[in-house]
C-alpha cells in the first residue's frame, strides 16, 4: 500500500509544522528588592549561567545606585545637600553628576511641577521612609517651606561645581530615579552582552530588544480594582512609567494622602488617580508621569507638550481615561468595566 505511505508523510509533516510553532522558553527571570521596591528582570535568549551572572551584577548595581542617591540615609546625596545648605556650593560626586542636568531641564520644562529641589517637603511627609506616615505634617511646617520657594532654577552647575542661591534647596531625585535606573540597568545588561531584556523597577519599565518573535508585553495596573487597565507592546529602547495615588498613601477620615505632592500647595495633588507615559528616555517618562499627575485633568496636555512627551494616559478621579492620539493608537484597553475614553490632541 505505497499510496497510504504518502498520506502518512503528509500527516507527519503537518504535525511537525504545528509542533515547531510552539513557543520555546529561553526566558530567564529574577526578582529582587532594591530602591525600596520590587525589581523584576526578564532576559531572553541568554543561557542560564550568563543570566545568573547578570542578575547578581544588576542587583549589586541597583543597590549601589540606591545608596548613592539615597536622600536621607548617609549617602553622597545627603552630603551634597548638607554642603549646599551650609556653604551654598559643593563639588558634585561623579555618581550624582549625570542626574543634575536632566533634572534641571525636566523641572524647568514642567513649570516646576516636577521639582527635585523640594526634598524638604518630601522629607516632611515621609512617604519614602520604612515606617510609613499615618498623619499629614503640620500646616505651618509646610507653609514655611513653600515660602522659601526651593527650585531647580536656583542651581547653577559649573563643571562639577554646583552652586545655589537658595539655602532651602534640598535635592531628592525620588520622582525620576527609578525610571532613570531602569534604563541604566538595561545599559549595564548591554555591556554584559545581553541584547533582549525588560527591567521593571515597580512603576518604571525599560526594555531592550524583544522577546523572540514578539515584542515585550507590559500591562498597566488598574488604579482602583485588582487587575490590569490596559496593555501595550514596548519596542527596543522604550520606557513606560506610571505614577498613581495607590502606590504609597494613608487614609485619614476617608481622605487619601498619597505621595504625589503638589509643590505649589505642599499637599497631595488631586487632579488624577494615575498617569502613564511612554518615552524613549526613562528619566523623562518617570518625571513627566509625576508632573502630569500633579497638573491633573485640566492642564496635563500643556505640561506634556512642554516636557516633550506625546504618549500619555491619565485616569481622572471619575475613573475616565484621557489619552493622546499616539497613546490611543498603541494601547489596548483591558479594564473591566472598560473606562470611558477621551482622546485629546496636545496643544
Amino acid at each position, binding site marked *: 500500500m505505497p499510496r*497510504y505511505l*504518502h*498520506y502518512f*508523510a*503528509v500527516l507527519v509533516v503537518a504535525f511537525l509544522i504545528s509542533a515547531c510553532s510552539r513557543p520555546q522558553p529561553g526566558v530567564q527571570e529574577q526578582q529582587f528588592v532594591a530602591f525600596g521596591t520590587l525589581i523584576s528582570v526578564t532576559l531572553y535568549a541568554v543561557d542560564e549561567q550568563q543570566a545568573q551572572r547578570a542578575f547578581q551584577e544588576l542587583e549589586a548595581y541597583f543597590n549601589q545606585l540606591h545608596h548613592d542617591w539615597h536622600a536621607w540615609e548617609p549617602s553622597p546625596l545627603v552630603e551634597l545637600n548638607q554642603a549646599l545648605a551650609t556653604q551654598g556650593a559643593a563639588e558634585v560626586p561623579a555618581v550624582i553628576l549625570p542626574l543634575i542636568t536632566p533634572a534641571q531641564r525636566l523641572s524647568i520644562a514642567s513649570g516646576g511641577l516636577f521639582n527635585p529641589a523640594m526634598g524638604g517637603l518630601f522629607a516632611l511627609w515621609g512617604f519614602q521612609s520604612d515606617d510609613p506616615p499615618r498623619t499629614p505634617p503640620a500646616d505651618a511646617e509646610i507653609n514655611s517651606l513653600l515660602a522659601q520657594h526651593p527650585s531647580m532654577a536656583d542651581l547653577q552647575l559649573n563643571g562639577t561645581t554646583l552652586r545655589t542661591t537658595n539655602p532651602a534647596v534640598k535635592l531628592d531625585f525620588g520622582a525620576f530615579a527609578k525610571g532613570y535606573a531602569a534604563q541604566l540597568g538595561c545599559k549595564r545588561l548591554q555591556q554584559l552582552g545581553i541584547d533582549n531584556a525588560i527591567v521593571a523597577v515597580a512603576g518604571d519599565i525599560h526594555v531592550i530588544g524583544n522577546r523572540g518573535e514578539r515584542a515585550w508585553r507590559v500591562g498597566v495596573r488598574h488604579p482602583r480594582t485588582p487587575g490590569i487597565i490596559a496593555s501595550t507592546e514596548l519596542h527596543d529602547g522604550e520606557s513606560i512609567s506610571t505614577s498613581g495615588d495607590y502606590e504609597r498613601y494613608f487614609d485619614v477620615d476617608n481622605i487619601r494622602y498619597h505621595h504625589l505632592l503638589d509643590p505649589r500647595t505642599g499637599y497631595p495633588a488631586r487632579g488624577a488617580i494615575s498617569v502613564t507615559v511612554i518615552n524613549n528616555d526613562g528619566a523623562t517618562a518617570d518625571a513627566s508621569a509625576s508632573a502630569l499627575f500633579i497638573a491633573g485633568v485640566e492642564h496635563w496636555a500643556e505640561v506634556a507638550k512642554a516636557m516633550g512627551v506625546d504618549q500619555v494616559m491619565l485616569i481622572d478621579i471619575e475613573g475616565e481615561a484621557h489619552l493622546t492620539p499616539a497613546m490611543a493608537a498603541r494601547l489596548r484597553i483591558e479594564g473591566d468595566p472598560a473606562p470611558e475614553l477621551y482622546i485629546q490632541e496636545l496643544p
Partner: protein
Amino acid sequence: MELSTTREDHLIAWLTALAVAIHLIEAALPSPLPGVKPGLANVITIVVLMRFGWRTAAWVSLLRVLVSGLLLGTFLSPTFALSLGGALCSVAILWLALQLGRGGFGPVGYSVLAALAHMTGQFGIAYTLFIPHPGLLHLLPVLLTLALLFGTTSGILARSMLKGFDNA
C-alpha cells in the same frame, strides 16, 4: 472578432454563477460568530474539482470570491481579504492533496481539507493583519471544529450532486 467558447466555458460560468449565488445568500444570513459561515459554496468547488480537475476548480473558486466581492461592494475591503485568503489556502491544499493523495480522497476528504484550510487561512489573515491578540488564539480550535463539521456536510452534499450528474 468573436471569442469562441467551449461547452466547458459555459459550464464554468454557470457553476461560478451558482457558487456566487450561494455565497451571496450566505452573506445575507445572520451569523452567530462574525466570519463563521457554513461555506456551502465549497460544495461547488468540490464538484468542479471531481469533474473537471484542479485548474477549473481554482478558477471557479477565485472567480466566485472576486465576483461576490464586487457584487457585495466589499471588493478590496478586509472582508474581501479574508475571503480571498481563505480561498487561496483551500485551493492550495486541494492541489497538495491531489499531488500527494494520488486520487485516494473522495469528495468528503477534499471538502474537509478545503474547509479547514479556508478557516485557517482566514484566521491567519485576521490574526496577523487585523487583531494580533493572543486571546484570539483561543477561538481557533472552536472555529476548526465548525469547519470540520461544515466541511463534512459540504462533502456529503457534493457527493450527492455528483451522483445526481451520473444518474442524469
